């Protein structure tokens, strides 16, 4: 019997992840039972991924406005004004589950997907970043997953020719069975040439471009468990395979077409492919759409309406063109050897009508698909209070340098070189500071301007105290941008959590979104885009919560930026944001505690947003006016680790002291927030400037030309030894 005639039951709906209430609502809205294709479309649009049903209520609380915001959440990516009539267009997106099943292809298609979100807006992508979380270093899967994910990210980015300029990686056993792969893309466009996805003009042609549609990515599990699935279903691959070469052609063709004033609206086919793209375009335009599925370029024979609508084949786009532009457009796509096919038209009906084999495969009102998408206020409670860890020496009477040597090789502190040297960080020839420093610095092509880019999150903080952890992620990103001398502009975020139906997980989500919102509001970095990934669990245990922040900042003249490397012997080293009489530091939830302490979850270092803004502004200002010669924010591992990184990145050493006091482990390794290490040739000038600005600064030493670090009077260690431990860790893991 023909597919459209198949009558679905609640069991089919349940197999597609819909609840009884959701099923009843569908029948009510349709006034009949949906067929397979229609049910598939509802289940996709009402899925967590497309509807944000568990998170929407809280996402609405995030600040999304500001004078710099050109496009906030709601489009394929967000956009902020960076001056000269240009916008930075960016977004982050997760590809966690596919990357665990097939690390190379999962990561590669994650990169391809986020790039499409950015060039769909009319922006030429100029940089890629990522945020990765893997299981325990010695878990048997970790090596394989790290190798595959890193190769996959490089495999796509290197081939399409967009530099991967930064990212972050942590290891924790909670990710053993559920890694996180979040990819961020940043592009540039003229602010008055940004393309959006709302369909316009009833009668206008709807065009399919890019690669052909195959059966990849159709939810195999769902299919197999449903009655209508046939024998072969289960054998079909559920992971998509990326084709960066076609991705590159599609990017060039779309940007060429967009320059030709032919495109009215455009939408990439991401999650839920043709379904979400057609529905989103029509609903945003308040219109309808009619598509003849027999016209969709297919890679395989006899694909059903359901399969065509839910395939997640990569490198595809849907566009509405000006009626008279079709031939211009076709010529461009022919030049790039890409499929170009008018498959339907915009209508006034407000309905999604799909034709197939001379019949109607689907005819549903678009309103309910979007407006009636469920929105849940899931139960949550107050975050648990954590014991404050009494700062104390956990590493016995080990010297600071001995502890440092052990910690610098810690899997979460060690050099990421093994990873980032597999990424082409320099193609496009505008990368002035690539991976390895604080924020990456990418020149706006042909200008003196630069964009500073970073991704950050500290899951162990979020786990202990989601609200402070959410704030801290924004604050740390803000510090990384400020440490190169750039002004933070806006953020994108990727909320990675477990099962939101569990109150304790929902609590993590709610609290960290509140903290993130507070910080974004306070630091004037509104949220312009993002993504949510829930149900990151294995056998009922959730991942460490990981609300990743991607931040973009701008600097007017790249020549005024600073790096983390010491620049000259004899310069004075200051801590910005720390008083002279401070002799200890916050070790609770620190790497030092993780390395030497017990498994208790302790309270996290407090985040003072006023101080963050004051200190960041001070550092930025004096980097740009040249008073500060090198800067590095203090984060994981504390002050001693920050100083060590500045030395290892340079040809210089340092002599550090804590005034008259002996250096305590907590002073050296405490992770108190809001601090930076900076160097200057004019110590008096810096102290004076700090006094005027009301910022606490403390001299903690000098840069030396000896290849060693000296702590206090007698405790020294060679940079060579530190570099060996720092550079050796990942290669040893991956050998």
């Amino acid at each position, binding site marked *: 019997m023909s597919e459209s005639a198949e009558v679905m039951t609640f069991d089919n709906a349940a197999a597609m992840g819909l609840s009884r209430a959701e099923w009843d609502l569908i029948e009510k809205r349709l006034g009949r039972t949906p067929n397979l294709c229609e049910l598939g479309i509802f289940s996709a649009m009402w899925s967590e991924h497309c509807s944000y049903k568990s998170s929407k209520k809280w996402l609405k609380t995030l600040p999304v406005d500001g004078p710099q915001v050109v496009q906030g959440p709601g489009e394929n990516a967000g956009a902020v004004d960076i001056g000269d009539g240009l916008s930075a267009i960016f977004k982050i997106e997760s590809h966690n589950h596919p990357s665990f*099943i097939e690390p190379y292809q999962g990561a590669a298609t994650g990169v391809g997907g986020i790039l499409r979100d950015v060039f769909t807006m009319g922006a030429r992508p100029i940089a890629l970043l990522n945020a990765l979380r893997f299981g325990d270093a010695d878990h048997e899967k970790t090596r394989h997953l790290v190798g595959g994910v890193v190769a996959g990210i490089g495999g796509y980015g290197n081939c399409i020719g967009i530099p991967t300029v930064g990212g972050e990686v942590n290891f924790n056993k909670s990710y053993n069975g559920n890694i996180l792969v979040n990819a961020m893309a940043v592009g540039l466009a003229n602010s008055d040439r940004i393309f959006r996805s709302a369909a316009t003009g009833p009668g206008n042609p709807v065009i399919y471009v890019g690669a052909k549609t195959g059966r990849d990515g159709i939810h195999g599990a769902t299919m197999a468990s449903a009655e209508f699935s046939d024998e072969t279903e289960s*054998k079909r691959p559920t*992971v998509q*395979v990326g*084709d960066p*070469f*076609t991705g590159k052609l599609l990017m060039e063709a779309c940007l060429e077409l967009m320059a030709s004033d032919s495109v009215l609206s455009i939408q990439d086919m991401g999650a839920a492919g043709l379904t979400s793209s057609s529905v989103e375009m029509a609903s945003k335009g308040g219109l309808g759409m009619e598509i003849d599925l027999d016209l969709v370029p297919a890679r395989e024979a006899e694909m059903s309406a359901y399969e065509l609508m839910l395939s997640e084949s990569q490198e595809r786009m849907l566009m509405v063109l000006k009626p008279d532009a079709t031939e211009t457009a076709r010529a461009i796509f022919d030049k790039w050897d890409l499929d170009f096919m008018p498959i339907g038209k915009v209508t006034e009906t407000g309905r999604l009508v799909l034709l197939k084999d001379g019949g109607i495969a689907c005819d549903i009102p678009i309103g309910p698909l979007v407006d009636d998408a469920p929105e849940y206020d899931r139960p949550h409670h107050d975050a648990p209070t954590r014991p404050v860890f009494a700062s104390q020496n956990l590493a016995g009477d080990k010297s600071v340098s001995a502890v440092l040597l052990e910690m610098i090789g810690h899997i979460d502190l060690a050099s990421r070189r093994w990873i980032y040297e597999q990424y082409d960080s320099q193609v496009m020839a505008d990368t002035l500071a690539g991976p390895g420093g604080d924020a990456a610095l990418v020149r706006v092509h042909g200008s003196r301007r630069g964009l500073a880019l970073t991704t950050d999150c500290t899951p162990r903080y979020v786990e202990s105290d989601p609200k402070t952890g959410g704030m801290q992620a924004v604050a740390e990103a803000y510090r990384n941008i400020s440490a190169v001398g750039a002004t933070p502009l806006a953020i994108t975020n990727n909320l990675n959590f477990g099962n939101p139906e569990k109150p304790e997980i929902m609590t993590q989500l709610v609290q960290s979104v509140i903290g993130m919102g507070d910080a974004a509001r306070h630091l004037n970095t509104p949220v312009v885009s993002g993504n949510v990934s829930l149900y990151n669990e294995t056998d009922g245990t959730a991942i460490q919560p990981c609300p990743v922040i991607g931040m973009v900042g701008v600097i007017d003249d790249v020549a005024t930026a600073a790096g983390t490397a010491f620049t000259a012997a004899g310069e004075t080293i200051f801590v910005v944001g720390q008083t002279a009489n401070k002799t200890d530091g916050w070790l609770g939830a620190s790497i030092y505690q993780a390395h030497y302490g017990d498994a208790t979850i302790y309270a996290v270092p407090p985040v003072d947003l006023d101080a963050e803004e004051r200190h960041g502004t001070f550092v930025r200002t004096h980097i740009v006016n040249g008073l500060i010669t090198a800067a590095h924010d203090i984060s994981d591992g504390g002050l001693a680790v920050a100083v060590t990184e500045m030395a290892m990145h340079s040809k210089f050493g340092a002599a550090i002291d804590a005034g008259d006091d002996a250096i305590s482990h907590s002073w050296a390794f405490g992770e108190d927030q809001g601090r930076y290490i900076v160097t200057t040739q004019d110590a008096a000038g810096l102290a004076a400037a700090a006094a005027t600005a009301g910022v606490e600064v403390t001299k903690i030493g000098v840069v030396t030309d000896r290849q060693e670090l000296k702590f206090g009077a007698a405790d020294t260690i060679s940079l060579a030894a530190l570099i060996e431990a720092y550079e050796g860790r990942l290669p040893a893991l991956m050998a």
Partner: protein
Amino acid sequence: MQAIVNISLKNGVLDPQGRAISHALGDLGFSEVADVRVGKQIQLDIDETDPARLRQRVARMCETLLSNTVIEDYSIEIPDENK
């Protein structure tokens, strides 16, 4: 003894390389080429004299390392099997 493992993409898995090659062959005047699929061929020299045991071991190797069973199928040839 020698074993040959042929690894090919599962049906339905996109083969961009195959597509590119068949385009190129077309451009070079081989217009009769309808479709191209690219796979790997792995030749193993193994210290094992019993074909049956060899086949078993090689199958294990395929499952654990040689083939990515999420997107690839494999087949095993033992040239000397019927000698």
